[in-house]
């Protein structure tokens, strides 16, 4: 029985000390890096508790002076321009983002599976087409988009904000890489031997294994859908359907400038809270999804 000589007490302590030092140094470094990211949020928070007249004062606002709850109160109870509560707007944002993201995940993962593991005529063309759509700028297509949507009778509904966005190029691209990188062909072989067709393979084999990848694409898409402004503005005229971004933009005041900084910041903090919560919940999956999905 070999006996490993115990470390002498001094080296043990020095080792612990150097670890502690490294931790402190890293923490300081990280805080220095992260601080610029957080400071704007801090200033937003400060401004959201101040009245407009004080915000416009040319002094550095490091703490709300005076502190008012008015901005939040009015937003909660819909006592501003739009006379709907912000919660209604946030609910609409949820509906928009969920209705866009969830079908997208199913459809894109299925398509990605096909592109990654199956051969069929036009495979390269369709994949390239999908990629190319990422590069179409939206401004020039807005008029045609509106024309289509109004002819289809989809105005003032969520449909034009769902259906056209169910097959985004980035999702198909990312998921295809993910499947190619993390699902060995042997698994597909085995299921083929078992007599499984495409759908069975997808449902039983692929889907459970790509959940982290789906989380990544899902959360990113959810965030983008949530923050959409251009298309929501075009489609919705009914105030009851306004999403939180439209709600936020209503604080712009008269076209010629009476910016309500306090209420704008308060509303934007409130409307980004759900996104923050979602990100917190799915944080681990996102990282692991990004881990396994790298391009080889």
């Amino acid at each position, binding site marked *: 029985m070999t006996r490993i000589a115990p470390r002498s007490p001094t080296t043990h302590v020095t080792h612990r000390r150097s670890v502690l030092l490294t931790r402190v140094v890293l923490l300081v470094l990280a805080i220095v890096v992260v601080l610029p990211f957080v400071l704007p949020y801090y200033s937003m928070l400060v401004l959201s508790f101040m009245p407009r007249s004080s915000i416009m004062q040319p002094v550095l606002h490091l703490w709300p002076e005076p502190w008012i709850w008015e901005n939040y109160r009015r937003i909660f109870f819909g006592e501003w321009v739009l006379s709907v509560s912000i919660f209604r707007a946030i609910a609409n944002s*949820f509906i928009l983002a969920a209705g866009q993201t969830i079908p997208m995940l199913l459809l894109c993962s299925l398509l990605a599976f096909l592109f990654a593991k199956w051969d069929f005529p036009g495979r390269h063309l369709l994949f390239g087409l999908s990629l190319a759509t990422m590069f179409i700028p939206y401004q020039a297509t807005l008029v045609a988009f509106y024309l289509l949507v109004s002819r289809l009778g989809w105005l003032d509904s969520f449909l034009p904000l769902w259906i056209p966005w169910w097959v985004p190029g980035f999702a198909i691209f990312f998921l295809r890489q993910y499947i190619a990188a993390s699902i060995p062909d042997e698994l597909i072989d085995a299921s083929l031997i078992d007599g499984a067709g495409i759908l069975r393979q997808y449902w039983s084999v692929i889907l459970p294994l790509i959940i982290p990848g789906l989380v990544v694409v899902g959360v990113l898409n959810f965030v983008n859908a949530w923050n959409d402004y251009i298309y929501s503005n075009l489609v919705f005229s009914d105030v009851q359907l306004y999403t939180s971004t439209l709600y936020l*933009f209503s604080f712009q005041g008269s076209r010629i400038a009476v910016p309500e900084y306090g209420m704008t910041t308060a509303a934007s903090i409130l409307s980004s809270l759900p996104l923050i919560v979602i990100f917190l919940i799915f944080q681990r999956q996102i990282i692991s999804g990004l881990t396994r999905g790298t391009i080889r």
Partner: protein
Amino acid sequence: MTRKLSRRHFLGTMLVGGGSALLAACLPAQQPTPTPTPGSGKLTGRLTFWGHPDHPLERIRDAFKNEYPDVQLDWVLTSDYYTKFQTVMAAGGEGAPDLFWLEASDVQLYGGKGLLLDVTDLIEPIKDQFVPAKLAEAYVPKTGRYYGIPGDVSVSGIYFRPDLLEPIGVTIKDDMTYDEFLDVLRRIAAAGKKAVLYPSGGGGVAAAYWSWFAAQYGGSGVATCDGRQITVDNEAGIAAARLLRDIVATGATLNTDFWTPEYWEALNSERLVLDFAAAWARGFWETNLDATQLGKWRVAPLPRAVSGGPRSGVWGGATLVATAKTQNPDLAKQFMKFAFASMPGCQAAADWGIIPSWIPFLEGPFLKTQFRLFGDQPAPRLWLDLSKELSTAYCRPAIYGPAVDILSTDLDPIVKGQVTPEEGMKAIADKLRGILPDFQ
């Protein structure tokens, strides 16, 4: 905390998402608009309007609702309503609102193409009741018809602080020439104060000033009123550019844009003691200035550019129109008449801060209004006189929109002395001539 996302959980989320999607999609269908019954004393029907939040039309809507409680008025207020409107109109006009607060140049553009409701039968009998310059904005020479009711008269003048100007020996007279005004500016600059604006690059400020000056010099602005010829480089246009350059050369201008925090701060700290401003800007001033400022300001006409010429120019000022595809043309006309050709409507508009173009109101209740900003000065009288002076030769045809964009960048080289006014305006004119065919 590691959350393993099971397939069941995933399925559950999908169901919830799908369920809520289904729910949201089952929205109530748009109610068919009941036909209004004209002349029966009781108005019913539904009108939609798109505008920005805190819009003058909100007050008018409330006043209208008071008189006719059975009419449904759906006002959609959003920040980017103009893009939305433009996109809808570019796609043919399906889904456009019944009413809209339209820029003068777009009245010419859309009216000329039949996208607006012809309201000649409404305007013709009462056309003498409106300020002539504004009436012209609702009239499209190409078709010879009226397409809206004149809205805000949007005159402009000089806002100044006599209590701060007197100590430096400056008095603003009601009838000055621009030469005298340049002198005033130099005195103000010498005293270390600021007067009027000129942001770096010129921007919208330069374009606005140029437009006023061009009108004051007797020009028609960027193009002739029928929109067929570019006039930005005629004598009036060149003179206007020269005047702009001379104003900036006095060194009195403040380098900031309209209604930025720096602007209000300069006013509140009494650094900016004089500015060109439109009549409707008063509302913004009263909101954004300190309470101590109220009552200390006075308003005066713009200096004259030519003897006998107008002492004011228009800035902004839209026209209330109805779109051609509206389902309720008669109700729309009723609303338009109420809004800007009746006492309660005009009063509501004036309460917001714009000045309606309806003379009976201007010569009536309007004259009794007191503006807190201007203390005891009878400002309404001045605005009324100035609106009658407005040049009818000046127009804002369809090409005015893109012209402003070009002016806001291309006047700067003239101001900086890099090109002469003649050369600079000619360059601008050439650019405009290139795109003119699309704006006929």
